[in-house]
């Protein structure tokens, strides 16, 4: 008899692949066959579509209906294909214009009454449709504002299957229904914490500024109550606002994770602070069937804060090594590989020992040396190797509190301006390279002809290298941080003073 054809989007990670949905009505006893590797939720689309169509006043014909989701070898998940399946079937039955549905990408889950329910991951799906060259996408009313954030594609919001059929030229009377909306999100950008709240600890504040300017990963070591968490929570505020592409990516990840996105892209860098009982799947992403992004992916373009880092399972921490290296999180399954962005800035905080008091000036540590060594040994060497700034944070004394309360303190807004200026300088210097931030520059380039420093400037680290005080890798890290310090000060090259301060920023583990 007839064939109806339309399109929808299947998400694998953040990548949207266009799925062609064909419906064929053949002369046989009524049945509904759905093929093309649907998962359980998608398999149940059969019953949702049949009921929704009947309750929308356009029953499916009492014939054998075969719906194929192509490419047939790509596994498909979730209920977002309902609208496309219903329209393909109605197209095959001649109830709607076949040409009209063929030009449009359809997304949305159907309720039994024919109303459309909003789905998660609409933002990356619409981006996928726009990239594939489609001009129009039809989404549930509840997702309309989110879909409209994608430039270059026309978004049609419909409240029910009946509205969709009418839009595609079906001969039905409009029947206004109450659209199903998502619960309203609170403000997308959480109020940011101000750097001025941090008392004392000037060098730690300085270290956060350097971390923000150069994109360096940070490790904070210190006793409980030293303000590690407070410092880490203020790092996202120091980062510049996201550019359009990064904002789309961050909002897409939120959408995919099932969080409401609302009518505006998230413009501020996200902060994710998973609890230390998190599993590898919770941190980098996973799940059977539908692969969901983990905390590290959601922290992309922002900050991933691991408080009490040694309490994390070491296998979980080491799962971060690949994204730290490549900026991409790849999750492998038997039949697919999902990629998520993973260019987050890592901040780890730890106590120096299980009791937490080691190195504190005011209290005695009760741990044995063996326990102490084992505690921090849980952080693997390769992981710490990737962290440029390792800083010891001390508890503030009452004298420092007095001094700090009097003097002017740096606010987040001032600090962010300085970070933006420093990043602009670094960006101009690295314009001819593939890197944008000092933390991304490999050591060979820093020691090479483009950026080589005079022996007088590097004398202190040359000597440390000779004595075995730092390794070659540590040497490169000091150079990287020194460049960021120079950018912050507005000098063209690091001076011996910058090198000295950079050396200070990596002494936590040796203290």
């Amino acid at each position, binding site marked *: 008899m007839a064939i109806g054809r339309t399109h929808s989007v299947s998400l694998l990670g953040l990548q949207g692949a266009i799925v062609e949905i064909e419906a064929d009505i053949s*002369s*046989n*006893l*009524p049945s509904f066959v759905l093929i093309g590797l649907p998962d359980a939720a998608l398999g149940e689309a059969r019953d949702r579509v049949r009921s929704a169509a009947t309750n929308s006043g356009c029953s499916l014909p*009492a*014939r054998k209906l075969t719906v194929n989701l192509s490419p047939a070898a790509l596994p498909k998940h979730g209920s977002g294909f309902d609208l496309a399946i219903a329209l393909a079937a109605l197209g095959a039955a001649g109830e709607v214009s076949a040409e009209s549905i063929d030009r449009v990408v359809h997304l949305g889950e159907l309720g039994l009454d024919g109303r459309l329910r909003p789905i998660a991951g609409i933002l990356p799906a619409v981006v996928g449709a726009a990239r594939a060259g489609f001009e129009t996408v039809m989404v549930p009313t509840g997702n309309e504002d989110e879909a409209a954030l994608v430039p270059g594609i026309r978004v049609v919001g419909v409240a029910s299957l009946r509205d969709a059929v009418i839009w595609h030229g079906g001969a039905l009377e409009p029947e206004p229904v109450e659209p199903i909306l998502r619960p309203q999100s609170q403000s997308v950008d959480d109020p940011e914490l101000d750097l001025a709240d941090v008392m004392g600890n000037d060098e730690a504040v300085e270290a956060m500024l350097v971390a923000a300017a150069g994109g360096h990963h940070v490790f904070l070591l210190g006793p409980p109550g030293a303000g590690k968490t407070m410092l880490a929570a203020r790092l996202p505020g120091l980062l510049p606002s996201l550019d359009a592409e990064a904002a789309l990516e961050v909002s897409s990840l939120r959408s995919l994770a099932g969080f409401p996105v609302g009518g505006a892209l998230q413009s501020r860098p996200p902060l994710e602070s998973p609890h230390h009982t998190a599993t590898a799947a919770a941190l980098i992403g996973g799940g059977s069937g539908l692969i969901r992004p983990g905390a590290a992916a959601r922290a992309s373009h922002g900050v991933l804060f691991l408080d009490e880092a040694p309490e994390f399972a070491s296998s979980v921490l080491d799962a971060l090594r690949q994204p730290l290296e490549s900026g991409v999180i790849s999750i492998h399954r038997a039949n697919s590989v999902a990629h998520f962005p993973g260019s987050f800035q890592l901040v780890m905080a730890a106590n120096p020992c299980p009791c937490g008091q080691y190195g504190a000036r005011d209290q005695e540590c009760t741990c044995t040396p063996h326990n102490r060594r084992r505690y921090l040994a849980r952080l693997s060497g390769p992981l710490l190797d990737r962290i440029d700034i390792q800083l010891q944070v001390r508890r503030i004394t009452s004298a420092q509190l007095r001094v700090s309360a009097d003097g002017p303190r740096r606010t987040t807004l001032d600090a962010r301006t300085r970070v933006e200026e420093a990043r602009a300088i670094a960006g101009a210097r690295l314009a001819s390279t593939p890197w944008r931030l000092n933390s991304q520059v490999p050591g060979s380039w820093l020691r090479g002809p483009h950026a080589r420093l005079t022996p007088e400037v590097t004398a202190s680290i040359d000597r440390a290298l000779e004595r075995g005080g730092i390794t070659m890798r540590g040497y490169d890290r000091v150079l990287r941080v020194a460049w960021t310090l120079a950018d912050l000060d507005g000098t063209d090259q690091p001076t011996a003073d910058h090198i000295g301060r950079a050396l200070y920023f990596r002494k936590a583990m040796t203290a």
Partner: protein
Amino acid sequence: MAAKDTLGRRGEQLAASYLEGRGYEIVDRNWRCPQGEIDIVARHGSELVFVEVKTRSTVAFGHPLEAITAVKLARLRRLAAAWCEAHPGRHDAVRIDGIAVLAPRGGPVEIEHLERVF
């Protein structure tokens, strides 16, 4: 006779005349054996056709064709074999069809014929 049986009889009669009008030769009707009943056996060209007829006055409880379930089809398949056994001769090609008769009270009758449903 209950109302539903009267409706069923009427539907079968309508289906039979529909088939005759399309050039089918009715061979047998309401053939019974211990396993059940075949509504219509007809000959169409060289093919022997076993027809299951379903009649409804409304679609409120589903379309008549939806009432032909997999279990019913399997029984029809066994019945067809039993009929062939009971009627020796050459039965080259056998097929099973379904006919839906929608006969609303006081309205026009609709007949839908599906070939080779099994």
